[in-house]
């Protein structure tokens, strides 16, 4: 397991998420979590503060006119 997050920290996250895991499930989470964390950590945090969420699509002008 990646040593960036300890088992006790993962246990706290499980509690925060409202789940109850068996020992085997917890062991598996400890194996999987670093993979998930790597994905999440690769989302940049340095975007300009005015950058908004991608909640909607911008329609092509020809469709917007119809």
């Amino acid at each position, binding site marked *: 397991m990646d040593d960036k997050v300890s088992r006790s920290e993962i246990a706290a996250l499980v509690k925060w998420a*409202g789940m109850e895991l068996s020992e085997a499930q917890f062991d598996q989470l400890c194996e999987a979590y670093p993979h998930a964390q790597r994905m999440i950590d690769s989302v940049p945090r340095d975007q300009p503060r005015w950058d908004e969420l991608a909640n909607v699509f911008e329609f092509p002008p020809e469709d917007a006119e119809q």
Partner: protein
Amino acid sequence: MTGELHHLTIAEGARLIGRGELSPVEWTERLLERIDAVDPLLDSFITVTGDQALTQARRADEEIREGNHRGPLHGVPFALKDVIDTAGIRTTAASKICVDRVPVRDAAVVRRLTSAGATLLGKLTTHEFAQGGPSFDLPWPPARNPWDRRRFTGSTSSGAGAAVAAGLTPAALGTDQGGSVRHPAAHCGLVGLKPTNGLVSRVGAIPNSYSFDCVGPMTWTVEDCAIVLQAIAGHDPEDPGSADVTIPDYPAALTGDVRGMKVGLVRHFHDSDVETNAEVKAGVERAAQVLGDLGAEVHDVRLPSPAEFAACQWTITCAELNAVHEDNLRHRLEDFGENTRYRLVPGAMTGAVDYIQAQRLRRDLIRRIDAVFEDVDVLLTATVPVLAPLIEDMKLSSIFASRGGMNMAFSVGGGPAVSVCCGFSEEGLPLSLQIAGRPFDDTAVLKLAHAYEQATPWRDRRPPIETNEQIEGAKVSHG
């Protein structure tokens, strides 16, 4: 009609029906026989709706004989990934959690297909809740790839990929939130379209990721894909993500003439960003050459890396999945398969800020894709960088691999993307090409895909599933 009736395309079958040379009942009966004989080898169906299919086919027969021919899908058999609701027919998501779930209402896409006169053959297996990979701890076994039954079909419309390739149905609907139509289309050697987000209603499709979910056709040919898209596309006020746009005539756009189309080859995806099988690379390069020979103007373009798309798509999907499954994660965790838990449980740790940052990244990535589309009409990539792996070689952690970013690029972008077969490896496994377009320009990707398909021989080759020995062996083993 006998012989290769099970390999009829929609367009071929519709022409025969129109001329009175094939009845919907005959076609449906033949496919039900084939499902009975071949599916024990593939495990692509969860539920076969034989009686209902024959009832629908008889009704189609009568209507057509009476001169009420509704169009190219009248009397045409199809099947559905089992996350798409069917009234009175169980819709399970291949999960123990939904094993007895019987919807009271058809999904919007089902209503559209049945209105067009199509005949439902049954419900196709999927990875649980359209997540994860092949699992052996679900109520149903994973589908097998008809090109080599030891191999993966691709995620997650797995039954749809296997069934269309094996000639069990000429069409299926899958769902795609990060490649789940295109990936099995690629590994099973067929056509799979992720339409523009908002073009096809999601009402009645079990949600997976609100930001990315799409319902899309999986067929043997591009023409068939266009016919199915024509029937299912259109505004649905019940779907908050549905777009009220004019629906073009997709089949009419398949002229074969792509002279002057501007094609951006995203070579860096397979050349440097993602470790890519040499035969896959060669297939994409040959396809670009074919398109150039057809008169398209092909040149290299650059997109953000697949890893960026994957991180964005993965983070958003995990958070949304947790919202979909929160109650079951808290109270029925044991009832999920191991493969699903492996993804869902860490995803439940995704924080609100992680989700928001990923949504902000998405807008940035969309902007960067849009900038590339200022100079080209369509983009070209491999659909998947690898050949279909052996199921026994697949690891749980493979769901975190960023190689899926080739598909996810266009899930994040929201525009259309189609996977088409672009040849075969030395060992006979399909190679695939992804063609992506601007949002709501699904016509362009289908047009280019069709021209490519017409210029190449790949549609003449079917999976080697149907030796008599295999079929007889399957019959014996199932009594």
